[in-house]
Structure formats: C-alpha cells, structure tokens
C-alpha cells in the first residue's frame, strides 16, 4: 500500500521539475542574503553559519510542502484515495517520505556548498550534514501534521508556519548545537543522539496525529 503511494508521489513530483528545484534556489538565495544583511566578514559569518544554515533549511523544507498536499486536495485525489480505502496514516507517511527524499536530501547534498559560502569551519561540515540528515526527517513528519491540519484552508501558508515553527525549536537547538560543537572542535555525538531520538519519537507518533488531522480536514 505505502509502496504504491510512494511511487505515485515520486512520479508526480518528477513531472514538476521546477517545483523540485525551487526549495534549493530558495535555500541558496536566503543563505546568501545574510552576508549582505549582517556583514561580509569571514569570522562573523563562520560564527552565524550553523544557525543560518539550519534556519534556512527548515524554511525551505516547510515551503516545499504545498506541492505535496494542496494540489492533491484541490483536484480531489486526496478525498478519492481515502474513499477508496487508503489509510490516511499511510498517505501522510508516503508524503512525508517523498518530501524528505525530494526536498531535504538534495538540500543536504547542497549544504557543504553553503557551508563554504558562509566560511563554515571545514571540520564542521560533516557534523552539519549528519545533523541535517537526522533532523530533516523529523521536520518533514512534524510538517505533515501542520499541513494535514491546514490543507483545507484557502490561505494556509502563514498559518502553517505559525503552527509548525514552534515545534521545530528543539530540532533547531540540537542541530545548530552539533554544528557549533564541531566548529569548536568538540565532540558532537551527544547532540546527534538527541536528534536521532527525536526522529524515532516523531516517526512513531506523528503519522497517527497527521492521519487523524487529514481525515478531519477532508471530511465535509
């Protein structure tokens, strides 16, 4: 069941290549705004780089959600899938996994480039990638709850961020902490473990909340 859903999502998203690229451009653009806004000084940039990269990745992942949910809702396929017996939990799970594979993963691959752009310490780059690798799936699953709650609303965008961003704070804290620790030459396994436990917790609980939310959103 979930496999068929995953294949469907992957096919759909591959036919909209531009939608696939947009979050990446967003990530690149917003991170490169910071030197203009703060200061082009390499030392200062290196200091703010972990936080900037994490916050921008978080926003990029969140902004990419509309493609996955809104269109399916608008053309009625979401309702049809549930009417035809697909469980809302597996629909949400498939969407979250697709979101991670097609938005977050390219972002992680691109993140060393941003790291270099912002003069992030070379030793911190593996820590950044690892922390993003563990943190972004959690964000995708939490975002799935927010998106399932707001999918039926006409202007859900701002509301989605209002709902989801406070829930992202722990991930942001541990993610940026791991990168900071690595930049200062400290051990960062502790932070990664916290991110991993957050991931386990979210993956095991969030799909059910999101599934219930989706059911409510599409009910008439």
């Amino acid at each position, binding site marked *: 069941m979930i496999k068929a859903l995953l294949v469907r999502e992957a096919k759909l998203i591959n036919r909209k290549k531009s939608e696939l690229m947009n979050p990446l451009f967003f990530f690149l653009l917003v991170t490169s705004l910071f030197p203009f806004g703060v200061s082009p000084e390499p030392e200062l940039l290196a200091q703010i780089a972990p936080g900037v990269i994490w916050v921008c990745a978080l926003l990029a992942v969140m902004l990419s959600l509309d493609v996955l949910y809104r269109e399916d809702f608008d053309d009625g396929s979401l309702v049809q899938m549930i009417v035809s017996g697909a469980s809302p939990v597996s629909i949400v799970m498939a969407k979250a996994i697709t979101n991670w594979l097609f938005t977050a993963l390219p972002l992680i691959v691109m993140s060393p480039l941003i790291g270099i752009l912002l003069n992030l310490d070379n030793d911190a780059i593996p820590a950044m990638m690892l922390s993003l690798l563990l943190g972004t799936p959690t964000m995708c699953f939490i975002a799935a*709850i927010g998106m399932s*709650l*707001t999918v*039926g*609303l006409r*202007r*859900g965008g701002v*509301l989605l961020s*209002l*709902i989801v*961003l*406070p*829930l992202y*704070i*722990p991930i942001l*804290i*541990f993610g940026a*902490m791991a990168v900071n620790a690595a930049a200062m030459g400290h051990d960062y396994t502790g932070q990664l473990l*916290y991110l991993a436990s*957050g991931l386990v917790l979210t993956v095991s*609980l969030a799909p059910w*909340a999101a599934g*219930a*939310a989706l059911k*409510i*959103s599409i*009910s008439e």
Partner: protein
Amino acid sequence: MTWNWFFRLGSPKWFYQMAGRWQPWIWLITFIGIVSGCYWGLFIAPPDYYQGDLQRIMYIHVPAAYLSMMVYVIMAVAGAIGLIWRMKMAYMVSISCSPIGAAFTFLALVTGSLWGKPTWGTYWVFDARLTSELILLFLYFGHMALFYAIDDVKKADKAAAILAIVGVVNIPIIHFSVEWWNSLHQDASLSKLQKPKIDEAMLWPLLVMIVSFKLFFVSVLFPWVRNHILWREKDAKWVKEIIEQ
C-alpha cells in the same frame, strides 16, 4: 450512577445553567483570595534578603507562569476528551482555554521581564525558562489561529484539539531542550516532590495567590464557555428563550 455528573457535563444547557449559578460565587471567592493574597504578599510577607521589596513581584509572576502551563494541559486534556467521547462541551472548554492561557503566559512574560530589568540588568535574555514561556505563547497563538481560520466549527474543534495534543507532547521536549541550551533563571522554588526552598512566611501568600489564580481562571473560563454555548446552540429552543427575555 457515579458517572452521571460526567455525562451531565456534556449537556450544554446544564452547563450553561450550572455555570451561571456558580459564577458570582466563584468571582466572590476569587476576589477575596486575590485581595487577601496580594495584601499578604505585598505588605505582610517579609522582603527578600537580597532583592528587598522587588521580590514581591513573585506573587504575581509565579502564579501566572504556573497557570500558563496548567491551562495548556487542561486545554489538551479537554481536547482529547472531545475527540475520544465526542463531547461538544469538552471542545468548547478546550477552545475557551486558549485565549485565557495566552493571557496568563503574556502576564508571566511581562512581570518576568519587569523583574529581570533590576535584577539581571536586562528586560529580556534568551534564557531557558523565558524562551520556553515565549514558545508556549506561540503555541497558544497557533492554536487560536487554527481554530479561527476554519469556518466549520466542528472541523475547527477537532483540528484544534489535535494541535493541542501535539503541543502537549512537545512541551516537555521544548522545555528540556531549551534548558540545556541556555540557563540563567533560578531553579524552580516550588516542587511537589521536594521540600519548598522558600521560607514559609513567603510560601503561604504565594500558595494563596496560586489557588486564587486558579479560581480566577475558572471564573474567566465560565463566561467564555457560556458565550460559546450561546453562539453554537443558537438554534436550540432554550437559547432562543434566553435571548428573547
């Protein structure tokens, strides 16, 4: 037999009448409690050794912070009851909690920052407790925004309840993560498991204030819930009779 009261709570008409009858009495007790607690705290209780009279802001700050968290839990529990037993009244209580909780959170933040200026030398720092209180305020805002964004009340009720439950799972995580991140705030002075660290002369007025704040919450909650009842049951016969009067 023992569950009768629980099921009766589910009847909007019964709740409306009960709340109306109790309301003035709860207001009266709240008024007495807050006035006596304030007088005790502000005039009778001894000033703090280090902070002098400044510390007296505690008698507002601590109850407000306590209530800000308690109300969120009540909101989530009421939401869960609504989802599980499909009780209309539970949803109304849940959604009524949100603005009140946000107000308590705001009060805790304001009194905290006023207290912080003379003691820490700054109105705001991103200290652990302040930050988690601020996040709590955001969670309340999100809850209210979601409820009022959905036109269909039934849908809005359920969506808001799910969000409240998700939030309540997250609150401890947020709290601890923020705590490890940064800390300047003093440790909690009150804990159920330990002997309180503050002197009894200060503890009693503080407890009086906490209890009166709880009553204050109930006395503000009742009018909110009653408004929700009137608004949602506006087609019911008994509501029409009340409006006509």
